[in-house]
């Protein structure tokens, strides 16, 4: 009964996204598409943070790596000379070796998933094996952000530096400026989001999902039940990195730019905030958190370009203080109240039920 209802909600939400293009202006649809990319990241963060208790403040890096992989392909596809424009003005004359395979879109898409996963696996393996946890892990992930961003900026001739990669015109021969192409990309994004969501739901419902939650509760205790938390944590961390990578690829296609700023500390923290606002323990909450927070951000900054940061800051504070489980938690507690009211009515003839 409860099972069916939850699934029904998921289906309704999916249908909602599918019909959205009918109601939205092109610009707004573009924004929504971008938010859905963010929602994919948010699902991954909810998995590692809400379910496993790992707070990563470095997911911007994974998002960025995915995006750069796609961006590299787009740059090469768009270049008439075989060299991306920024290399020309940085004085690079031959395409660096690691760029070469990115002429192949299949390779680029594969890399957009594998590269972030690989980094997460390596980093996660060492950090988790060495039992670095909690705040320590969070801050290490920030240090990783600093390293990667500084490198990307410093290696301008290879990466495009602060500018990042932009000026994309076609993808697989289709013009990215074409609104029909953009609509197709929107539906692809919705599809990917649905797959990522379903996969994550399945994961959390599996026994492994319970192990993840047990790790959140007490990692060492999990060891004494015979599980090796390291492998579980590495797995879920890389999975969420892969999600972020996929999201990054879709982002680049639709937004048309990726720069180190998108991998920095600020976006990485904001990603966590989307999830906090939506409800870290709820995957659907995370999806709506990403959409809602970014929607609010766009709205605030359009309406009050001078003080929108204050409004955004207040939003963060208020939600964190008063909705510890985010919007999903709010919905849940309203539901519970409602249920209680109902059951109280039904049982009103009985004396107060006793604990135990």
């Amino acid at each position, binding site marked *: 009964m409860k099972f069916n209802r939850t699934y029904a909600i998921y289906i309704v939400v999916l249908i909602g996204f599918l019909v959205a293009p009918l109601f939205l202006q092109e610009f707004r649809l573009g924004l929504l598409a971008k938010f859905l990319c963010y929602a994919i990241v948010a699902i991954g963060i909810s998995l590692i943070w809400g379910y496993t208790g790992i707070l990563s403040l470095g997911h911007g890096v994974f998002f960025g790596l995915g995006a750069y992989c796609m961006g590299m392909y787009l740059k090469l596809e768009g270049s008439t000379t075989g060299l991306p424009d920024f290399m020309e003005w940085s004085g690079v004359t031959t395409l660096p070796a690691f760029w070469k395979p990115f002429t192949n879109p299949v390779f680029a898409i594969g890399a957009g998933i594998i590269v972030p996963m690989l980094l997460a696996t390596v980093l996660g393996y060492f950090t988790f094996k060495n*039992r670095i946890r909690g705040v320590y892990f969070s801050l290490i992930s920030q240090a990783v952000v600093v390293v990667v961003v500084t490198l990307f900026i*410093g290696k301008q001739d290879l990466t495009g530096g602060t500018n990042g990669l932009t000026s994309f015109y076609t993808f697989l021969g289709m013009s990215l400026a074409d609104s029909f192409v953009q609509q197709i990309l929107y539906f692809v994004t919705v599809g990917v989001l649905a797959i990522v969501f379903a996969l994550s739901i399945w994961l959390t419902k599996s026994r492994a999902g319970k192990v993840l939650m047990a790790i959140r509760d007490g990692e060492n205790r999990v060891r004494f039940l015979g599980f090796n938390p390291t492998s579980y944590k590495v797995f879920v961390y890389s999975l969420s990195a892969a999600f972020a990578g996929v999201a990054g690829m879709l982002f680049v296609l639709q937004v048309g730019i990726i720069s180190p700023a998108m991998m920095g500390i600020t976006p990485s923290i904001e990603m966590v905030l989307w999830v906090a606002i939506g409800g870290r323990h709820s995957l659907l909450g995370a999806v709506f958190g990403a959409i809602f927070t970014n929607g609010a951000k766009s709205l605030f900054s359009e309406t009050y370009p001078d003080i929108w940061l204050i409004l955004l800051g207040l939003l963060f504070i208020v939600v964190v203080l008063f909705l510890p489980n985010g919007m999903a938690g709010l919905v849940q507690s309203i539901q519970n109240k409602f249920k209680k009211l109902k059951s109280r009515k039904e049982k009103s003839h009985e004396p107060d039920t006793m604990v135990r």
Partner: protein
Amino acid sequence: MSIFITQLFNGLSLGSIMLLIALGLAITFGLMNVINMAHGELIMVGAYTTYVVQQIVSSYLPQQMLAYYFILAIPLAFLISAVLGIIIEKTVIRFLYDRPLDSLLATWGVSLILQQAARSIFGAPNVAVKTPDWLDGGFSILGATLPYKRLFILALAVFSIVGLSYFLYKTAIGRKMKAVMLNREMASCLGVSTKKVDSYAFALGSGFAGLAGCALTVIGPIGPSIGTNYIIDAFMIVILGGIGKLTGTVIGALGIGILSTTIEYTTSATIAKVIVFALIIAFLQWKPSGLVSMRTRSLD
């Protein structure tokens, strides 16, 4: 020889700056477990306080007083930041003691607000603080010039660390602070007023941030986003040193200072930054709880 001395001094000097910006965090983060992302903005408040004091002194007091406005600015920077800290503690942090990671998110909001507020009040561009003349110039030794400003910051850092250590390790309030942070309920059952201790501790941490801000006006920019320049470094120092241990923080700060300047001297600032952060990551793999660890046998 002179370059060796200069670089060693540069390292120590950078280390002392790092120490100043990290000291406040060593309290709010190291002891109180609050991940205060607005720490950088408290530094900013200290810097703007210095600016305002200078403005007031130069427009209302005789010209010769201007040389000494700094003496007034130091305690005021501490005080104003501390008061702001108390306000933040009472309105935001207080609700989050059992949710340290959430404190990160809420204080991120606080930092956005403070930055924008500074922009609205003082304008977006940087403001200039003219350091008093007696801090101009430097002290020459073996061909190297050690600027007075840097010596001054070094002295301020030493003074702060000595004062803070005494406070934390030798006084009852320091002990109470540690107890409250470890187990709030139990501390209160023993008669410790947790609310007071929370406010004191957060005010103290914020005050040190203000002090750092005041010191930074001597060498760096003063603008609404100054805090963002320092916040990550400050956190790195605290975890590198080992959460909750001042000795660790000191070693961490000086270590990073000397390491950064040395690597930068042989490579470039960008590479130095990459290497230093990579080394921090690697070091923590080796010593997961920092230089000076506080592990106990409890299960988690």
